[in-house]
């Protein structure tokens, strides 16, 4: 019997100063409510999984977590800043503290893999010599050194996911949000990717992974203390005992 509680404040409060804080958030689109009464607080250094059936609103919730979508009601706070009052430029600065990996990783196809990975440095004006040494190290860390000069369309699914992860972490973000990061890759590759995420978490980063792959969650839970959240019927629940 899974542990499912509907009391939002009760289930996901992990600290006093959450890096991402959603309070009573609802999101509607096209006349229908996709998410309702969502409260989520992510403490620094925590590791969370977000599960739920396809179409349940996982991606929508992830997008609310980095300000790509604006909540219809409720309050979204990123690093103690209310998203609603933020200018686009403020939001851009906040996003430099949140690394995002999508299932369908998008790149600038005319730039090389290395240039794509260093894109966050480029847009923040930090692509200096010191950073280029870090870039090489990072590319090596995700195992893409031989492919650094390739163009994104030449990469396999797994390579794209690793490149997206490298791009997401190059600014040393406080939070990494990964939406179905293993959706397009085989088991071995997904394990490799997860090891990278676990390593990041052990370095103090907050991790939130949206996935419907329960085997993946079980594999991770043997290595780190992770909480599992589930979206069901537009609401967020804590799940854990059955995993």
């Amino acid at each position: 019997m899974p542990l499912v509680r509907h009391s939002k404040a009760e289930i996901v409060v992990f600290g006093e100063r959450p890096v991402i804080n959603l309070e009573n958030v609802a999101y509607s689109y096209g006349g229908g409510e996709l998410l309702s009464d969502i409260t989520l607080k992510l403490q620094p250094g925590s590791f969370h999984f977000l599960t739920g059936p396809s179409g349940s609103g996982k991606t929508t919730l992830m997008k609310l977590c980095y300000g790509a979508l604006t909540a219809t009601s409720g309050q979204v706070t990123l690093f103690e800043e209310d998203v609603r009052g933020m200018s686009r430029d403020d939001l851009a600065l906040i996003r430099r503290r949140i690394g995002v990996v999508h299932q369908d990783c998008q790149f600038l196809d005319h730039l090389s893999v290395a240039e794509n990975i260093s894109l966050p440095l480029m847009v923040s004006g930090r692509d200096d010599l010191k950073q280029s040494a870090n870039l090489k190290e990072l590319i090596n860390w995700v195992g893409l050194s031989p492919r650094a000069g390739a163009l994104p369309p030449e990469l396999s699914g797994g390579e794209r996911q690793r490149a997206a992860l490298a791009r997401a972490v190059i600014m040393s973000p406080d939070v990494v949000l990964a939406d179905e990061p293993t959706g397009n890759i085989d088991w071995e590759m997904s394990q490799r990717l997860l090891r990278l995420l676990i390593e990041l978490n052990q370095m103090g980063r907050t991790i939130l992974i949206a996935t419907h792959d329960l085997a993946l969650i079980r594999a991770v839970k043997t290595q780190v203390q992770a909480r599992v959240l589930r979206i069901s019927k537009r609401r967020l629940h804590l799940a854990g005992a059955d995993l």
Partner: protein
Amino acid sequence: MSLRASLVHFIAGDPQAARVVPPTGFTVWLTLFSAAAMAFLAVFALALSLATGRLAERWGSELARSSTVRISAPAGQMAAQTETALKLLKTTKGVARARALDADEQSALLEPWFGPGLAIDALPIPQLIEIIEEGEGFDAMGLRLRLAAEVPGAVLDDHTRWRRPLVQAAARLRLLGWLSLLLIGGATAAMITLAAKAALAANAQVISVLRLVGARDSYIARAFMRRFTWRSFIGAVLGVALGCGAIAMLPAADPGGGFLTGLGFQGLHWLIPLIIPPLAAFAGFVATRGAARKTLKEMP
């Protein structure tokens, strides 16, 4: 950010920023072609303005500095009246010199109508005296009265009624030339705006990726502005080169020829078209800035 601050940031900012905008796509050629075509036309409009300016000045000064006395008298009195008129003119204040046109010169004046080899002696042609003025010129009214008293067959023509409409026409042509330049500038900005908007719409994914990695909208706008400003400049350089080449190949100015043979640049005026590429680049900068800011604001 004000236009000035935006321009300073644009010049002093990261020159590598433009790399994030894909270097290919139909908007590249659209911008290059528009800028080149408009610069080509601008060269001609500029040449027209300068040529009409010169023409207005020449017509105005040449005609203003000369007058004509026409003597219509019986054959027996023609020489005497001409002699009297010349003596009178020599003593007139404001007349530098006066001379009677000889038969060949009068024949040359009639040549456009009667063709070459005209036997002028067989025609009752009036004698013409050319007057070149000095200083502030002569008193036309006083001269007319004196001529009427001493040379009954003389008529003074100070060219005023010819000069005024010619100068007016040349001034209007010059104005039209400058107006054309303004219209060309506006059309260039409009085309680049459309191209920039098309490029922004076609690169929605690029913008999405840039926003995802924390790029400010001002950074994204600058990246597009750099691309389009540079393309506008390159296109205009090509257009100016072609336009100047075409102008250089026009027939040389013929002193006795028509107005069109004088269309072109003379001396240092050849340097004036060099201002067109920077102006086109500035038009591209302003147009892309407006288009980018508006489009990015509207994008979710």
